[in-house]
């Protein structure tokens, strides 16, 4: 049973200085599934997502209690290699954030820092990643032009390709489509469906329809607590907590 869970979150509390942003979160995230996190603004979804690849370490004065196991190993133990952790757990942000480099260099960045120097190998990885991110056909003739010349939706898919290029096991996505128009959003959603065969995906979203469309499991956060976590169908059709029902039926939030 436990080797089906890629991540096991155990009684996590999280603090920004004195402010407690997460309270006693426990959940198991399954391998090769899409897990959606929903909840009103400010309830701690992003904070939670960023505890998984320890991005919160970059913010001064933050503190975590409890534990998170990745592949059965604690990611908050003393000697953990955070750099390697972030290689294995990729992240896509709310706003596309390509580096001000060429399209090719953006995707090649990860493999390069992780030691691949062979030109042909790099090219293979870049093309493969761009294909997986469903971007290759649109950019194949201008891999050397600046990433900043792409449209917002293309930039976001480039960021996905960039994350895939280091071959992560888990992909964290923080409202990846919130800055995009409906067409680009649909493309990203299709992509997520494809990617789950190879990766475990955790996606934060503001849109309940999106959660219902793309995810297998859904967790509902409210004011730093995980109110309910279950199969997506169950959450949307027959939630067991009154607060969840209120939220998904639009009675608040």
């Amino acid at each position: 049973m436990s080797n089906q869970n890629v991540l096991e979150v155990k009684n996590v509390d999280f603090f920004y200085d004195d402010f407690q942003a997460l309270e006693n979160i426990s959940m198991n995230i399954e391998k090769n599934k899409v897990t959606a996190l929903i909840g009103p603004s400010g309830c701690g979804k992003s904070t939670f997502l960023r505890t998984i690849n320890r991005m919160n370490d970059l913010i001064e004065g933050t503190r975590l209690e409890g534990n998170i196991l990745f592949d059965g190993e604690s990611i908050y133990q003393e000697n953990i290699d955070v750099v390697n952790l972030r290689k294995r757990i990729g992240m896509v942000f709310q706003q596309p954030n390509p580096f001000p480099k060429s399209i090719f260099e953006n995707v090649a960045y990860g493999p390069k820092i992780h030691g691949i120097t062979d030109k042909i190998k790099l090219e293979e990885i870049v093309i493969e990643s761009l294909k997986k991110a469903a971007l290759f056909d649109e950019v194949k003739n201008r891999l050397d032009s600046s990433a900043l010349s792409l449209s917002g939706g293309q930039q976001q898919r480039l960021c996905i390709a960039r994350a895939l290029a280091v071959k992560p096991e888990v992909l964290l996505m923080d409202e990846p489509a919130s800055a995009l128009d409906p067409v680009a959003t649909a493309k990203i959603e299709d992509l997520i469906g494809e990617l789950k065969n190879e990766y475990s995906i955790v996606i934060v979203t503001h849109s309940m329809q999106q959660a219902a469309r793309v995810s297998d499991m859904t967790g509902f956060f409210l004011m730093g607590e995980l109110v309910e976590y279950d199969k997506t169908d169950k959450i949307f059709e027959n939630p067991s907590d009154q607060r969840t029902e209120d939220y998904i039926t639009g009675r608040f939030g």
Partner: protein
Amino acid sequence: MISLKKKRMLTDKIFKVIFLIFISLGLVVLAALIYDIVSKGIIMLDWEFFTRFDSRFPAKAGIKAGLFGTIYVIGLMIPITFFVGTATAIYLEEYAPKNKLTDLIKLNIANLAGIPSIIYGMLGLGVFVRYLNMGRSVLAGALTLSLLVLPVVIVSAQEALRSVPNSLRNASYALGANHWHTVYKVVLPSALPSILTGFILAISRAIGETAPLIMMGALTFVMFTPQGIMDSFTVIPIQIFNWTSLPKAEFELVAASGSLLLLILLFILNGLATFIRYRYSRK
């Protein structure tokens, strides 16, 4: 053979140490400089040092002329610079339209900030001393230094004004205040601490300025204090410069005493600026 991962970690650590050494370098040099100046400067520093004029004999040399000269020049320069600098910043931030002329003025100010100070001395010599016939007076010196520090004062005052939130301005307009009242009663007071911080730092620089005043023709060996703004003068850093160029070894100690005095002034003014900044940034 170390693994690539170890190598990356090692590179990271090595550069951390290198960068730390780099940043410590500045601190170490500052410490060495302070130690050197204090240990040498304290020897000849007594009350007499402040009450005596310069002399050919190191033991009898004093800073009185430079001290009074600096007080006169900086004292006259402060109101001129503060007024012109703040007014220019207010114009540029609160009044100026977005057009070519404004761009030109801004570009010009940025360029003025990069012109060597000795060139300002040439300007002072040409315009104030010769053309306007002020002679090598306190007034000419103060005006020269004003022009020199104005670009810095303007730019830091502009930044201070820019950091005042627009909501404050709108609140004032909503009460029916006109533009100037809004600027004078609302924007300026809330930008004042930042403006002062930048201004005090600029004054602290001006006290140490030597080249433009030498160029403008300030005297080096002076046996009197100025009585009015049309009198000739010298300043502390010029006396130090003069002492460093004298052959007698004891003058090295006298120069250190003068430098110590400048460092103390620097610490007081920078301390004041830092105090104002932290005091008001907490709010």
